């Protein structure tokens, strides 16, 4: 039935992201509410990614504006082979790159991948026994605490949320962008690689650094709270 509905439409839609279909058709029909809701949802993440390329907020805002103009212009050609969000982000990165070049700024995202900080450990090495330990080399010196007993209500508190937001904000730009796109915006790794021109491996390293640091911040906060 879905297939029938799709073949009955004039738009050359593929089945990959059926949920996007309604949104795209609403936009094509000029539905302002659908447009505003999409723009609101994507404003901050688009702005953040634009900032990486152009480095200043005012220019990034213009890039986001230009992106939406590009989206609307391209809407009739959108075929749904990628998700709508991925397609919009690709328009953004292309717009941002063009703009950055025009302003004499070239910051390919892959160069930012150098921010992976060689040798940066996920966990403080002091937490482990030395490699020369007779029985347990490289084993935990003291185990990480189990969070299983922490009431969900506490984990979902605004204090914990603030700790996480602060930890995410403190990350280098490339790590921050990857963790935001992956874990907050819900893009998969393939989409993030496409949006940011990253290899799968680089994307994973950035995600690993980012998640590890947020976990550390959370661990530190929850440990202090326990003592209190």
């Amino acid at each position, binding site marked *: 039935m879905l297939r029938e509905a799709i073949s009955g439409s004039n738009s050359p839609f593929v089945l990959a992201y059926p949920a996007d279909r309604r949104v795209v058709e609403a936009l094509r029909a000029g539905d302002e509410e659908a447009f505003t809701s999409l723009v609101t949802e994507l404003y901050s993440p688009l702005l953040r990614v634009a900032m990486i390329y152009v480095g200043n907020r005012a220019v990034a805002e213009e890039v986001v504006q230009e992106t939406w103009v590009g989206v609307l212009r391209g809407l009739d050609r959108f075929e749904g082979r990628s998700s709508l969000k991925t397609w919009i982000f690709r328009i953004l990165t292309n717009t941002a790159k063009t703009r950055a070049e025009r302003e004499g700024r070239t910051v390919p995202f892959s160069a930012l991948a150098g921010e992976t900080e060689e040798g940066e450990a996920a966990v403080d090495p002091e937490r482990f026994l030395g490699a020369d330990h007779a029985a347990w080399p490289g084993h935990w010196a003291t185990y990480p605490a189990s969070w299983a007993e922490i009431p969900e209500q506490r984990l979902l508190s605004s204090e914990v949320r603030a700790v996480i937001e602060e930890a995410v904000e403190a990350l280098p730009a490339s790590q921050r962008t990857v963790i935001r796109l992956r874990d907050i915006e819900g893009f998969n790794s393939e989409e993030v690689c496409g949006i940011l021109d990253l290899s799968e491996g680089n994307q*994973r390293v950035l995600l690993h650094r980012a998640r590890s640091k947020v976990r550390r911040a959370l661990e530190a906060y929850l440990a202090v709270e326990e003592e209190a």
Partner: protein
Amino acid sequence: MNATDDITCRELVELVTDYLEGALPPAERARFEEHLVHCAGCLDYLEQMRTTIALVGRITERDLPPEAERAFLDAFRRWKAG
């Protein structure tokens, strides 16, 4: 089991993302899971990472400055008017 084949806890924490992403080669994945069977510390660590990811996922930003919203809507109306 040969001790030199085992991954240490210190190594395991660096493999957690590859593990969760399904990016570990089968042999390494097996060693990772074998380690978890014997190591409560690493099991808790993995759970901490899963919790962290879930909690990060709860952050949403939905702030659109009114002047930006107006500008976007203007662009939309111009586009509609063709």
